[in-house]
């Protein structure tokens, strides 16, 4: 991309010290020679880079099926139709009629009781998974931080394991666990717990590695054992940060929980799937609105709590 064309000002160059710089004229000649050499090299590098980059992009779009026959008039039409069918056809004057009247809000949200249950299930999955993630994440962090785990190979193994789990997309984990545990929220709960533990384990571990060592030293000096040192010398000073990270994870968890249902792992995503299977496209839009609302609400709630937490920490 164009960054490669910029590379002439990116790398430090061979210095001009070696060349005669005694007069302005000789300095100019030395500079022009060096500049010409640099430009020759840059021209090769940047035209090669540009060719490779452009080639990759063109290839990527072609290989993804962006050619005129699969992606043309027809698909635009289909897209238009789909969007058109998402319209719930609300009528201004019937807006607040009961659910039997087509064009009213109640008709559009006729399956609300079912959706409400699914929303609650989503929230419950996220809450329980976040709590479990915090617990297992803390264990993993204690096992992977230099300050709390003296044995090298335990730290190393834990860190590599956490890395491997984080590489895994939630959804792929979810389909594996659905085939293991069957349809339903249990598979979703385990998915969210595994990925949450790996993520929190890493962040918690970073916090534990960057603590103030003095309180713990004082504990040790007064004869506290290793577990007491961790309980009273490390946990108190890190707990506000860890709590705040847990709330952040809750936001991610909610967003993830809304989608897991699509592969049958519980929550509002299942309703989304159902709406598509039975071709209830206007329900689809309603569920989408609920999902966005849930995610935004979770972000706001967690944001408020985190702000309060950091205020309390400041006040101390």
């Amino acid at each position, binding site marked *: 991309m164009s960054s490669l064309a910029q590379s002439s000002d990116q790398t430090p160059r061979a210095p001009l010290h070696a060349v005669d710089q005694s007069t302005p004229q000789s300095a100019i000649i030395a500079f022009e020679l060096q500049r010409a050499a640099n430009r020759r090299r840059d021209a090769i590098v940047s035209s090669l880079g540009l060719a490779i980059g452009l080639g990759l992009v063109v290839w990527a779009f072609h290989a993804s099926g962006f050619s005129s026959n699969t992606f043309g008039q027809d698909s635009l039409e289909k897209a238009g139709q789909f969007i058109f069918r998402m319209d719930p056809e609300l009528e201004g004057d019937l807006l607040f009629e009961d659910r039997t009247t087509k064009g009213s809000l109640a008709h559009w949200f006729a399956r609300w009781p079912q959706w409400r249950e699914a929303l609650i299930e989503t929230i419950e999955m996220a809450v329980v998974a976040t709590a479990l993630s915090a617990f297992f994440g803390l264990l993993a962090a204690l096992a992977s931080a230099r300050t709390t785990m003296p044995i090298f190979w335990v730290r190393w193994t834990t860190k590599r394991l956490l890395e491997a789990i984080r590489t895994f997309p939630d959804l792929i984990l979810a389909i*594996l666990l659905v085939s293991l545990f069957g349809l339903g929220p249990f598979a979703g709960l385990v998915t969210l717990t595994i990925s949450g533990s790996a993520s929190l384990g890493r962040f918690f571990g970073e916090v534990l590695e960057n603590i103030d060592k003095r309180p713990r030293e004082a504990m040790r000096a007064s004869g506290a054992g290793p577990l007491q040192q961790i309980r009273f010398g490390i946990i108190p000073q890190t707990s506000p940060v860890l709590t705040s990270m847990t709330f952040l994870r809750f936001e991610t968890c909610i*967003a993830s929980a809304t989608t897991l249902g699509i592969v049958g792992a519980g929550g509002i995503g299942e309703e989304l799937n159902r709406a598509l299977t039975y071709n209830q496209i206007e329900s689809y839009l309603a569920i989408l609105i609920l999902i966005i609302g849930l995610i935004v609400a979770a972000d706001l709630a967690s944001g408020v709590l985190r702000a309060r937490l950091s205020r309390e920490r400041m006040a101390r």
Partner: protein
Amino acid sequence: MNQTLRQDAYAIAPDIVRPRLIERAKRLAPAVVVTLIVLLCLIDLDLDLDRLANWSEIAGRMVAGLLSPTPGDNLEEILAALIETMAMAIAGTVLAVSLALPLGIAGSRTVISHPLAHNGIRFVYDLLRAIPALIWAIIIIRAVGLGPVAGVFAIGLAEAPYIAKLFAEYLDNIDAKPRNALIASGASQFQAFRFAILPQILPQYVGLSLFFFELNVRAAAALGVVGAGGLGVMLEDRLGYAAFDEVAFMIILLLVIVAIVDMISSRLRQKIMGNDQISWG
């Protein structure tokens, strides 16, 4: 110890002096409430553990399969799917970045400075960011049919507001002094942008795009599960036949590819961005 002395000592060193019951309860209250909420959620979830009774039998087959990864007879298909996933990740990143570029510039305080308009734009980005890529994928599959095109659009649309927000923040946080110096030397607005702002933001933008490309390799693999092309489609298919050995092969392949992509990309980022780190504003 008498009561006042105890209170004084508590005020000085609350962690050491054993506080009175009511104070301890007050401090423990948030933890108790949170625990209760979690327990209530757990009970209400109705996990139906009876149905899991026969899971150990499946688990046995699964572990056995996962421990003996093999491509089966589908090596060529798997590799083709992997290449398709990579193509989706590249095309999706390019689409997301090209959408995010104008959006990011529009979201910058230096471009649209009116606070109401600025906050309004940012709010819209935040709303759009709430839609996960998977949900985009399902909508788009409806529109353009099953296949990688849907995945590319899903990645592009889901990430554009994300990247736009970060682009805008970078633009708002650059060093303004070189630009002012060039304006003071009689350069035009465009020239000042070209010589003072572009050299600052371009490496950051390219680095950020590479970072999102790394994430998108994972995302592209996941999107296949709902039919948006690539390795995920194969994965879902083989899992349907309980071919755990082939699933294991694909997963290992994915992990290796992700590791390689991360390594190359983070080297490139290091080279382009120098010591600047990606910050999540």
